[in-house]
């Protein structure tokens, strides 16, 4: 049975079901038991499972990541969360030097089944150190899995799959998705890591997207459809491992690729998608692959700068028009936006 709940509620439900299924699952993070419960995602956990398994932590990202790793070496499955990805950069030492390579460098003996939830975003003046989309940084490290769910159902299914995966998983949520509603199964469903979803089938062009950009792409697709352009939209769900067969099959069908990314373009996930498609599907491509990602500058804070920094559905439509050599209208998309560009919708009232 499924019903409609928000992405944040779906995350919360995954926690409850994982902790019920396995007493080895614990969770901690700064503010995990505070009244806001990490955007509502951790509410009620401590009441239900107690303070030994659900606890707030010192402001010590690197050390506490090491604590999670150490506990995981003795059969515990820790789930850590950070309200901003940016703070977790303090823990790159433990993540990269220990978690990512523990299984490999000791010849496949112990492994590190930890899940690290990181929240990214855009808008609302979050600026240079509160909204970085650094998924490519994590994907670059051998030994890490990186997942970025878009829908509420995948948020639940991928979190459950991540918690019960025997390897370190970096689980990245976009703040603008927390209020998104969708059908979510009541049971403890698991979405396999490394499998993309074909969100929309199409003939003329393949869009490879993930996380919040998939939402912008969906808006673009409707407008493109009305102007006679049929796009296939693939939501990667897992950045690493990446579902290459699904990407290649789609590009072989459409002959065109537009890769979307929520992060800066240099060495981005989109860059990797363009590179691999260029190498593997060159014969099937009708024109050079393109990508749409952020310019190589730190995230600005002012709305006037954000307006030219972030990519929106209008930019996607125009990129497709550019590839097909057509002038396309974005008037409908502009008219749809009845709220300012720096918030995800009227529901968002800040402060973070």
């Amino acid at each position, binding site marked *: 049975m499924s019903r409609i709940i928000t992405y944040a509620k779906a995350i919360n439900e995954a926690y409850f079901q994982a902790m019920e299924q396995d007493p080895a699952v614990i969770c901690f993070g700064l503010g995990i038991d505070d009244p806001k419960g990490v955007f509502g995602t951790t509410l009620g956990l401590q009441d239900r499972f107690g303070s030994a398994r659900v606890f707030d932590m010192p402001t*010590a990202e690197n050390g506490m990541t090491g*604590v999670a790793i150490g*506990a995981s070496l003795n059969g*515990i499955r820790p789930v850590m969360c950070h309200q901003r990805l940016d703070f977790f950069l303090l823990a790159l030492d433990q993540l990269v030097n220990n978690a990512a390579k523990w299984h490999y460098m000791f010849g496949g003996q112990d492994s590190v089944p930890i899940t690290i939830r990181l929240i990214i975003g855009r808008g609302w003046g979050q600026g240079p150190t509160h909204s970085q989309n650094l998924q490519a940084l994590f994907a670059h490290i051998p*030994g890490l899995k990186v997942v970025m769910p878009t829908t509420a159902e995948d948020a639940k299914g991928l979190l459950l799959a991540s918690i019960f995966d025997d390897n370190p998983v970096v689980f990245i949520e976009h703040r603008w998705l927390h209020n998104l509603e969708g059908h979510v199964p009541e049971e403890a469903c698991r979405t396999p890591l490394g499998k993309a979803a074909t969100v929309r089938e199409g003939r003329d062009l393949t869009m490879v997207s993930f996380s919040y950009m998939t939402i912008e792409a969906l808006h673009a697709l409707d407008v493109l459809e009305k102007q006679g352009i049929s796009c296939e939209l693939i939501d990667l769900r897992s950045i690493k491992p990446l579902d290459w067969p699904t990407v290649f099959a789609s590009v072989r069908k459409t002959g065109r690729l537009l890769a979307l990314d929520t992060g800066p373009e240099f060495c981005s996930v989109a860059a990797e998608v363009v590179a691999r498609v260029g190498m593997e599907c060159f014969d099937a491509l009708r024109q050079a692959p393109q990508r749409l990602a952020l310019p190589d500058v730190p995230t600005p804070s002012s709305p006037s700068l954000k307006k030219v920094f972030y990519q929106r559905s209008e930019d996607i439509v125009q990129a497709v028009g550019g590839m097909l050599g057509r002038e396309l209208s974005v008037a409908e998309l502009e008219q749809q936006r009845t709220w300012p560009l720096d918030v995800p919708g009227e529901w968002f009232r800040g402060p973070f």
Partner: protein
Amino acid sequence: MTDHRAVNLLRSMKRIRLVEETIAERYAEWKMRCPTHLCTGQETVGAAVGQVLRPDDFALSTHRSHGHYLGKGGDLKRMLAEIYLKGTGCSGGKGGSMHLIDREAGFKGSTAIVGGTIPLAVGLGLSIALKGSDQISCVFFGDGAVEEGVFYESVSFAALKQLPVLFVCENNFYSVYTPVAKRQPAGRAIHALAAAMGVNARHGDGNDPLAVLDQVEAAVAEIRSGGGPRFLEFETYRWREHCGPNYDNHIGYRTEAEFLAWKERDPVLRLEAELLARGAVTGEQVAAMTDTINEEIAAAFLFAEQSPFPAPEELHAQVFKQ
């Protein structure tokens, strides 16, 4: 202290010394093709801690981990095979000298980033608390590690949650070539830092084996009975260069006189002399002990040399646990 325990300590320290010195002797053969950090001169702490801990207690260590691994009961053949980077090594040849593991002995791993295993020991302590067992989690580190932020984060959390963790700092006064006086303010003791964070901390002479054994036994008993974390700092000295088989007193970062003063205080000879003097062992017994260890070492080197390298397809194996 029973003579039995003291003699076992002597055996363990001698074994570590002879292994390290044999590696030094044979390193020039160019068959051990990885950075190797020998602990000659500072065998006491690893041997004493390893002797007091149970096999099901956990230990983690650093780049200079041979003594800690062997003291805890790590398999010698597999350690040498790892230093030879062979498929039979304790890490399958994927780690080398700085990445040793022996799960059966409770030696959970050593890594090369300074301070990197300290929070892991605290995490293992957390897992012990969650499971309600009476195990102990121990971590070895040096004086350089207390300059890392992660040291404070880890000790502080162990104090907060009163976790069963034994922190063991071997202060050998140098971080590679940089003396502690250039790195830490005069008059500030390392053990005092831990005490300031709320952990019961003591210190002692790391070249006085029987005193070290006493201190470790006391600390372990206190942790085991639910007393929370303990911190031990022992001053000691590495004889050979930071990394490699040679002596480097001539290059200018420390003096030959300083080295000779510490060599005079050789902990292996000291314990041997003490045990001979009180009749706990005879000269013949010590000689036999040495012979037995040397035979074991010769067999282990042969095993390492004769073992095959990992097969090329191992490159892609074990990135993820399947």
